[in-house]
């Protein structure tokens, strides 16, 4: 078991180090997210107060587009030079490889999201610093959901034709409940309401989604990662 966690840590570190050195997908995802933010500002010419009602929805749409870009690299990164086959054939347990890659994608997506948040606040005049703790909790929970499902599908689609199209086609419908919960929770927080009472339901949804899909992915990944 500790061998597995050590492997997961090693893989996460390798992925993060590769990505942070080249910053390929980080740059792509972050700039794509900013561009989408700008596009949406043209799409919805709303008054400032009306904007709070769709703030959560907008933010999570942007985050999910960036997320798809980041998880796409997850297992595809191992394709050149047969690295994927070597990884699978090695002693590393499947769940450890998956966990390492999921954690790396999670951290990368978090970086992109926290870059976008001030830009979002700037363009749309939204205060996001009140109840920052709750906002971070929501972002962390929902990002984990996106990355765990995304990394699982990255493994599933690694040998599929037109992978860059198939991964989003699979990913987006699957994470809709998660996005609904995240959008709802974020709108509530950005509008200044407290995260209590009825609003806790969306947090529950996020947690349930994360637990179910983390368990499913960890359990099923061994069937995906075969040579």
């Amino acid at each position: 078991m500790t061998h597995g966690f050590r492997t997961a840590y090693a893989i996460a570190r390798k992925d993060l180090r590769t990505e942070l050195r080249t910053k390929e997908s980080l740059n792509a995802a972050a700039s794509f997210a900013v561009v989408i933010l700008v596009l949406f500002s043209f799409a919805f010419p709303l008054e400032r107060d009306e904007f709070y009602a769709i703030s959560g929805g907008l933010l999570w749409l942007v985050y999910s587009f960036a997320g798809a870009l980041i998880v796409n690299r997850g297992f595809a990164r191992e394709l050149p030079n047969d690295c994927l086959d070597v990884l699978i054939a090695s002693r590393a347990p499947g769940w450890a490889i998956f966990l390492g890659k999921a954690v790396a994608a999670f951290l990368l997506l978090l970086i992109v999201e926290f870059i976008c948040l001030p830009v979002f606040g700037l363009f749309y005049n939204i205060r996001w610093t009140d109840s920052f703790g709750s906002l971070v909790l929501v972002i962390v929970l929902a990002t984990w959901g996106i990355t765990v499902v995304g990394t699982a599908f990255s493994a599933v689609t690694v040998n599929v034709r037109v992978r860059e199209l198939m991964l989003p086609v699979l990913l987006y419908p699957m994470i809709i409940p998660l996005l609904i919960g995240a959008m709802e929770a974020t709108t509530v927080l950005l509008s200044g309401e407290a995260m209590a009472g009825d609003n806790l339901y969306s947090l529950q949804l996020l947690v349930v989604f994360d637990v179910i899909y983390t368990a499913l992915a960890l359990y099923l990944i061994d069937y995906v990662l075969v040579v």
Partner: protein
Amino acid sequence: MREKATYLLGALGALVMISNLHTIFVGLPDDALQGMIFRIIFIHVPADLVADLFFTIALVTSVLFLARKNFIYDSITVACIEVATMLILVNLVTGSIWGRNQWGVWWTWDLRLTTQLMKFVLYMSYLVVRPAIAEPTQKATMSAIIAIFAYADVPLVWMAIRLPNVRTNHPSPVMGNGKMAAVYNAPFGMGMLALLLIGSALVLLRLHQETSQREIDSLRRELHAA
């Protein structure tokens, strides 16, 4: 043998359907408020229920495939999912027409309709990705995993749409489920039976095609190898 079973099921299903249509139109009193349109329920709801049954069967056979690696399970999975997706489309379209008639809108984002749309979208993604996988074993394995993930998503979608502030600007119309008078139970049951028979016939047909396709693939490999 299997072909005979398929045709028999199909013919039986068609017969039940026709007799049921007769009952629906001639033998039943009207709903006080809705007039004739109420009778759409006898195909609208059974389509959903039969589809759900097939999705559940697909889940079971997906798990069985992963456990036993027998390709028959994969064939049953894809057959069930195709037929069930078609039935969900029937459910969506008939529901939309009913809605246009009763509430004046072709679509509304209420709990039931949105869940149905989500099921359709989820399993369409399965049907779109599956042909893109070339190698047969991988195709079957990945399809099984996608099917399992998709099935787990449906209750979560249900949970998500019940969030307090989501979709409250639209009314949540009741389609009369669970509130039908006893006289409607027989046609409803017959409608279910009819769709179940027709659906099973289609699944068997599709299953037969999957097996033929697999034989084609193996023959091709044999020809190339020699």
